[in-house]
């Protein structure tokens, strides 16, 4: 069972507002830049994508992998982070 990171906890603790994509768990500098190049410059844009994919884990993971090349762990972290945020605030 993987424990949540500090980044995850920080993100889920409050509404994301205008946080950047790097604030997402699993998204670091490299992945964040790739996402920004694709047009996902803010965390809420990725949230939008997550919601458009109907919060489906597999689809979101595939999308994340195709868009920024995230590995399995990063995909999982990002998905879990967004999912928990949605459970709390959406």
């Amino acid at each position: 069972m993987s424990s949540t990171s500090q980044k995850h906890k920080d993100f889920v603790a409050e509404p994301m507002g205008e946080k950047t994509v790097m604030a997402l768990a699993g998204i670091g500098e490299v992945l964040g830049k790739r996402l920004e190049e694709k047009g996902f410059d803010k965390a809420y844009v990725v949230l939008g994508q997550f919601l458009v994919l109907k919060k489906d884990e597999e689809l979101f993971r595939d999308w994340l992998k195709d868009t920024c090349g995230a590995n399995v762990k990063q995909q999982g972290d990002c998905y879990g982070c967004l999912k928990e945020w949605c459970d709390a605030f959406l």
Partner: protein
Amino acid sequence: MPDGCISPECSSGVQWNHLLANSDQIPGHTWRSKDREEDPDHTEIPDPRTLTDDELKAALLHHGVKAGPIVGTTRAVYEKKLKKLLQPDESGKVNGAEKAVVYSDSEEEEEEEVEEEEQKADGEEEVEESVCTESEKQTAEQTDLAKQESSQAKLPYQNGSFPYLQCFMPSSRLHARPTSNRESKSKWNSRNAVKSSERSRSRCKEIPVGISRASSVDQHSGLGSGVPSGSQSVMSNGCSSFSSQAFSITQMVKEMESRSLISSSTDADRELNVSNVQEHRSQPIRLQIADRMKNQSVYYTPQDSPHKWGAQPPQEPMKDIIKEIFPETGTTPTGIHATRRRPIKGAAQRPVQYGYPATPVSPATLERREMERRRVPIRIQILVFLIMACILYFIYVNLEDICVVLLDSLNQGFDSEDGYSLQAETEDTQVVSGQD
């Protein structure tokens, strides 16, 4: 729009125009109209990229997937998904393997059963399955091959599942296999009782020693250098990374190699080793275990088995010897004994370089014991220190009174001599203390 009409054969004319119009709107999509026109009959699976959004959604729904809105960013994902669905068998296994890889780090045993049985080799699958059925097959094989000396060593190589399953068949087995099985058991996953693990533990201790002994015997007998070198290397590996239960695969392989080398030189081994060691049997198969049995007597407190060795005639069947080796096992009608073995770490498709001690290793336990011995004195030392500190504090606080008491006692001790001087001193001290 025709729902579910995916094949290009239906309403082809209308579709082509619509698809052409669509392709202009969606950038970045390769247009494969030429391919489609050339092979309309071959491709029953349409290229998801050529479908419209609605058609893609319909196709996904056809496969039981409720797709969300297909917009620019989601289209690629859904196309990929549809491709996966159109190739169900391969993609399903691939996903399972990926997920198994994700979770295999954290779990030990169960994941292999669920996801990887299909993908693993037959040997591993047989390990996962019930032991009884496999061991029955193995007994049939072994009884046939029991008399063949050279093939015994080869069997572990032939069948991947061979080494694992024979520990449960002590009665009709030969010695060489249980030993190898024990070693391999310690590596591969299976569910067995602690009893067999303890058995394997006790035996595994003897194996490297037995190898060393075998090497020395072989040297005396004048065998090839390959045997003692291999056995010595195994011994060194066993001693260095030795733990009662954990054996590395390299050790196991070397063990097998040494055993194969021993068994390969059949006649020469017989004569020389029998001459050197009286208790050894004529057959090299027994010889391997015989070395180890003798090692039991040499290096450990003699158990019943060594004595039994001398008593029994060399022509006794294998069953007695095996029963001696495993004195604890009762007899069952099928001769199958299934006991739980401790789970092994690191077996999830990862080679284990060295043993992972799941339980305290002997050097580690020694260290821990030493630490525990030291821990108690430390606390006692702290207590003593605190007590001394309190005493000193009281002395410091009550210094005056204590000095008076001490000097009075001294005065009583010294009646005439220095009595006046002490009294004077006491008076002085009292004056001084009074001033303070």
